[in-house]
């Protein structure tokens, strides 16, 4: 059957780009706040629906992107300040609380937008396909690939060239130390949570244009994000990038070559890493 040619390679890469956008937010929140935010997938879906609504009513895709990022960032703040503050310091309670929030958000989305499948409308110039060589490839997916790279660079610059980034990286290594140095670590945490949530919202609108938005998309993207972050390592941007590449390519190759084993291809490596190298490929010790 068709082996890994350019077409399938691009498929894997473009999926990886989307996964990276979503998982980078997830890994930041885990790396710094040590919160496994199981509502991340629901934030993705909610963000996508909001982006869709904005883009449909205003006719402007970029407005949809920005709007969804802002809205989900606000939701993230509400989640952190409104709910998670009651369980600070209790890791497992936090995780389970976010799981409860995920259930609520998923059902709420069903009430607000219904069960139909929606596609976020993209601007004219991104529709259609580009031709190179013997293949047609959708322009939009190439855009996603480029966007993923742009987000990676932007985040890298943020983390390594700004004060906030330095604080985040220091906090990932040792939050208590940073606090002892007189920094308002709470504010850093909050900004990080907002950033991570905004990335989920961005992912939702971007993903909503080619993978569509539908009631179980949140669980699916959450599972992928978990896999990416576990394989790549918590709190590491490079880890999220590598993890996304692996998961994106594995998923695509898996579907083409081993359709029977579709889930195993993702969960197998995930379980193996958790058992033998829980920190993932690039993760740092707590």
């Amino acid at each position, binding site marked *: 059957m068709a082996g890994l040619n350019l077409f399938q390679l691009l498929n894997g890469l473009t999926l990886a780009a989307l996964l990276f956008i979503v998982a980078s937010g997830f890994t930041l929140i885990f790396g710094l706040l040590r919160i496994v935010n199981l509502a991340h997938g629901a934030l993705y879906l909610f963000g996508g629906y909001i982006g869709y609504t904005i883009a449909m009513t205003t006719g402007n895709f970029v407005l949809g992107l920005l709007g969804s990022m802002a809205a989900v960032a606000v939701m993230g703040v509400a989640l952190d300040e409104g709910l998670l503050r*009651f369980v600070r*310091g209790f890791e497992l309670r936090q995780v389970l609380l976010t*799981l409860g929030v995920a259930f609520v958000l998923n*059902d709420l989305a069903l009430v607000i937008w219904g069960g139909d499948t929606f596609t976020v409308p993209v601007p004219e110039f991104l529709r259609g396909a580009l031709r190179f060589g013997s293949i047609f490839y959708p322009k939009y997916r190439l855009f996603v690939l480029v966007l993923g790279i742009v987000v990676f660079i932007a985040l890298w610059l943020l983390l390594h060239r700004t004060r906030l980034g330095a604080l985040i990286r220091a906090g990932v290594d040792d939050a208590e130390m940073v606090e002892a140095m007189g920094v308002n670590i709470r504010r850093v945490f909050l900004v990080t949570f907002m950033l991570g949530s905004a990335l989920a919202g961005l992912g939702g609108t971007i993903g909503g244009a080619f993978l569509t938005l539908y009631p179980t998309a949140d669980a699916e993207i959450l599972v992928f994000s978990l896999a990416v972050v576990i394989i790549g390592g918590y709190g590491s941007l490079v880890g999220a990038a590598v993890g996304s590449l692996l998961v994106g390519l594995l998923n695509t190759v898996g579907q083409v070559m081993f359709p029977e084993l579709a889930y195993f291809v993702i969960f197998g490596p995930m379980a193996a890493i958790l058992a033998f190298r829980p920190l993932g490929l690039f993760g740092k010790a707590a």
Partner: protein
Amino acid sequence: MTATTTTGAAAASPAGGASQRSALAWGAGIAAFFAVLPVVLSSYQVSVATEVLIFALLAMSIDVLAGYAGRTSLGHGALFGASTYVVLYWTAVLGGSPWAGLAIGIVAATVLSAVFALFCTRVSGVYFLLLTLALGMIVWGVCLRWTSVTGGENGIRGVGRPEAIADPLVFYYTVLVVVMALTWVLWRFVRSPFGLTLRGVRDSESRMRSLGYNVQLHMFLAFTVSGFFAGVAGALYALFNNFVSPSTVQLSQSVEGLLMAIIGGVGTLAGSFIGAAAIITLENVVSEYTARWPMVLGLMFVLAMIFAPEGVIGAVRRLFARSKT
């Protein structure tokens, strides 16, 4: 800032005459309550009560690990459902005897949990949670895709219960006896030296290790034992439901089981009965009015984590403690 349990204080206190008697009183009370219940219930409601008992057993199996060993699992639904699959495959597809089927199902679940345990012995906390989640999802994936054996999306339909326990009331009492017997066994287990060691590990793993205990072996055994109980619950479920499909092993099964243990009170076996009764009857009631059960379930989780992480029993205990001072 790692906390390995969702609650510290609700665990049963160590051996002492008074607490032993109170525990026995609890057990007798629960048994009596469930024994008398059918008198006031309709036939359909008796089947709901049967379901409560079966899931209480599942919740207890999760509680053994979460409350006494400090390891919260999101994979026990898969162990539960695996047993159901094996029992139904044996009886419906292979045409074997139901009694043998039950035994084989339970053994299968125990073996599977031993396999899970091999992966899980060295991790704790959130990693343990995610690892059990991943393992559970692998089981789900297998059940979904291995169509020739599991029937895939369609699942496996059973051939009904054996004559002896076909009547819903008879079945109810059978399940009651089995569940109460196993509750007693579990109670003895958590009070045994092995159980005390587990609690020591929960409280401080490093201390136990420095005292010379083989923590990993203890974890492995605890996990496998808890898997056994989940397997029994799954086998009973096969008889009860007469049907199994991938949704029986999926994540939401583990989540509901965990929630039942939490609502009742992690680290108290009796809490599982309360939690199972609460969730199942609530689901029945809520579904009469609205399709928004997932939202209600999610809210319960959130509220439980914030206000009552020690569950009903923990809250009641605190109330008594406060009223004494």
